[in-house]
């Protein structure tokens, strides 16, 4: 038995879905967060059913991917529909509801976000007009869940008769909702702020402040976690323990070196993923989740649209970029709601080329902050510059047409701590389950190759490039080889080499522009095709060596 959860974007469907199924679906205060749909099992009494979180659409005209998915699901003979209306934007929700009723399926309706209007929406009137049961809810506070569950129970038991199709024009939607709706009250303080934040003044200065503060927060919290919590724990307790245990069992030799030597498996497999990367995963995703839930991101998109127009994109394309600062995989997936395929490829390419993932950023910070605190903003500014330049080039080369922006700007909301914590946990858990292990395995393989001398041989072969052109020590070939597997590994091994400032910067630039990691290549091949993935490999490889080399060559002439 399948029940569909349908409604316009950003009405709280995903929150409701989570409350009903206990599955962690992603939610954000950004219209159109659910690109893929999610299914989850839930039960009412002893009846089990499958709930589907259908992507939010404004309409059912099959004009974009989300709408096509929704239509396909409606035609797949579900047992019933739970339609979610937005108390604050009743009219638009009503229009979609009327369209859904045309399908003649058993339907019940929920007026969600009813805390955002002052007074109560007249559900009895709606129910009487449409001939379907209607309840109100506040998904974020779990209010009205029992009523929804009992309606779902009715759906499953066949107690709700199929809806009667009726006219679904705007006039009808306006009529019903204007009678059921409560007048919007005065703007409150947070709304007024919300409006100020999209005005160029003071919106742009605020946006710059927000970005700088976010950066500071991510770096500060990440470093704090690392220095105060994780490292003391590792260095004080865990590592001595491991070393003691190993030296007790293994005597001197290659094996000992592999286990706890320079690239010691037991030390690095723990220290790199958990000590260097994890703190920044936590701080970055906390910051991103706050930005997402507060509804600030659409504002940023609107403010930055003018700039993005220059490279043929629209401000809403900032989302893949921000996600890319976490990991390129979800960033590339999130480009699915871009209709134009070439634009999708362009955004994905820009993310792969010039946006460092959080793991790599963490590694940059560890590497550069020790040498000079200014190198850290320098490399991130360089990344922005590179993205823009690359965008300009891609626009020309790919002949990208300008994107037209139509974007709802939802009200600012105070993020709900519970939901925030949950989101953060989903993301951290994902790193722990999918990120740590591959990284550890690769480090282990690298350690074996290194200790057995294989890496050194390959390194020697790359010497003209690495030493002659890039001005780096010969060992720096190692991170470039490892970088094929994970992006942060292009940086981390540099930590133990004694590099000058110029070398640090050159190496960082190469690492930044260098090829995407293997997981990203996989996603590129899956989302587009092998050819695109191969192109991306070649282009990033060539550009990173070219730019890094130029920086070194020019700097060494000047200095």
């Amino acid at each position, binding site marked *: 038995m399948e029940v569909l959860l349908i409604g316009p974007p950003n009405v709280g469907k995903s929150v409701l879905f989570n409350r009903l199924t206990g599955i962690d679906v992603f939610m954000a205060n950004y219209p159109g967060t659910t690109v893929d749909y999610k299914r989850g099992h839930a039960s009412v009494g002893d009846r089990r059913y499958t709930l589907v979180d259908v992507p939010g659409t404004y309409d059912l005209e099959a004009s974009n991917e989300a709408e096509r998915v929704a239509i396909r699901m409606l035609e797949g003979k579900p047992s019933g529909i739970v339609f979610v209306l937005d108390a604050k934007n009743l009219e638009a929700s009503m229009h979609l509801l009327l369209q859904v009723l045309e399908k003649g399926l058993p339907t019940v309706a929920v007026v969600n976000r009813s805390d955002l209007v002052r007074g109560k929406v007249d559900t009895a009137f709606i129910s009487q007009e449409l001939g379907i049961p209607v309840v109100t809810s506040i998904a974020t506070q779990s209010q009205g869940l029992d009523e929804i569950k009992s309606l779902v129970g009715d759906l499953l038991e066949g107690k709700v008769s199929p809806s009667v199709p009726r006219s679904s024009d705007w006039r009808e939607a306006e009529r019903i909702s204007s009678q059921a709706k409560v007048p919007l009250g005065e703007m409150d303080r947070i709304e007024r702020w919300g409006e100020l934040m*999209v*005005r160029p003044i003071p919106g742009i200065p605020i946006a710059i402040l927000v970005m700088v503060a976010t950066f500071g927060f991510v770096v500060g919290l990440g470093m704090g976690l690392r220095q105060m919590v994780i490292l003391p724990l590792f260095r004080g307790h865990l590592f001595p323990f491991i070393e003691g245990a190993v030296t007790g069992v293994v005597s001197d030799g290659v094996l000992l070196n592999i286990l706890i030597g320079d690239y010691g498996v037991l030390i690095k497999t723990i220290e790199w993923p958990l000590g260097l990367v994890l703190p920044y995963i936590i701080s970055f995703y906390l910051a991103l989740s706050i930005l997402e839930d507060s509804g600030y991101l659409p504002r940023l998109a609107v403010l*930055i*649209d003018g*700039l993005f*127009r220059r490279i043929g994109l629209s401000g809403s394309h900032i989302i893949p970029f921000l996600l890319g600062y976490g990991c390129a995989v979800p960033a590339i997936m999130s480009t699915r709601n871009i209709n134009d395929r070439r634009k999708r490829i362009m955004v994905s390419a820009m993310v792969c080329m010039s946006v460092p993932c959080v793991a790599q950023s963490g590694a940059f910070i560890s590497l550069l902050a020790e040498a000079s605190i200014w190198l850290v903003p320098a490399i991130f500014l360089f990344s922005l510059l590179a993205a823009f330049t690359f965008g300009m080039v891609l626009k020309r080369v790919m002949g990208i047409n300008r994107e037209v922006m*139509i974007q*709802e700007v939802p009200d600012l909301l105070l993020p709900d701590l519970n939901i925030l914590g949950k989101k953060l946990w989903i993301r951290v858990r994902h790193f722990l389950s999918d990120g740590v292990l591959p990284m550890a395995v690769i480090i282990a393989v690298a350690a074996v190759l290194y200790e057995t001398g294989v890496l050194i041989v390959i390194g020697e072969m790359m010497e003209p490039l690495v030493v002659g052109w890039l001005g780096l020590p010969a060992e720096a070939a190692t991170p470039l080889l490892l970088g094929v597997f994970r992006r942060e590994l292009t940086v981390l091994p540099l930590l133990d080499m004694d590099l000058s400032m110029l070398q640090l910067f050159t190496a960082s630039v190469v690492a930044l522009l260098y090829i995407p990691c293997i997981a990203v290549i996989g996603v590129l091949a899956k989302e587009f095709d092998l050819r695109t993935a191969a192109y991306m490999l070649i282009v990033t490889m060539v550009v990173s060596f070219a730019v890094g080399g130029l920086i070194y060559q020019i700097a060494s002439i000047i200095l």
Partner: protein
Amino acid sequence: MGLRATTSDLSDMNDTQFNEVTQNHGSERSGLMVLMQNGYKRMEMTVSRLPLLGNLYGRIFYGPLLRREAKVAGLEEGSKVVVVGSGHLPLTGIHLAKQGMRVTCIDNDPEATSSAVRYAARRSHSGELEFMTEDGIHHDYSEAEAVWVAFNVSPKEPIVRKAVDDMETGGKVIYRNPRGLLAKVYGVVSPSEIPAGHRRIRHLVGKDSLVLVNRLECDHCLRKTLCSLEEGCEGVIAAGPEDPVLRALGIRPGKTVRSLCRQPLGGPLLACVDGRKVAIDMDIARTITLV
């Protein structure tokens, strides 16, 4: 601004006299204004001897601004235009000529005309460019398709009015109004008091450009759209594109829409319908007409 009639009578005098007389009139705002005008003129004089500087400013800032004004006014190559108050550094005229227009520059200061001629001789352009010494208030604008009235021309409003009256249906007058503090010092010429349709262009920095269109019959230029709606004002939508998302967001005929603000660098316009904020691309905002 009771001073206007007086200063226009004095417009043949040279700078110093001009300055003294207005100061005798004692109005502080106008004194300051004249002071600033003269300062501006001196600056232009200096810059006209440093072609590189003027060139740079023109490329980066002034050229795009003029192109925008010309686009809104619907002017094309070959259009016949007049620039009133072209000054020592006739950037307006040169840029318009570069866009292929036939330009006549007038200035009531013979010195300005002669140094403008000298400056222009060193610039290349594809249009026609001629200079005359004449006061803007006496010029006959009936042949022109568009008239640019420079910022420091005075008396501005009578000249703007005369140009609107002289020209044929659809003729355009372009002038600029300062914003904020400068508006207090200089005063503004309010477009709504002149019998012509108008569109306001807000630039990222500096002044507003106003494009006046004479005769109310010109319905294409006078069409009120969401884009021409002034910030903070409300209008009722007459028609718009048949886009399902726009309609769902409340951009439908009959809805009252408020224009909140515009984003820089040609970014979207922010509108509010039923308490819902929607960012709409300028190209689309221009197609949403109001009653």
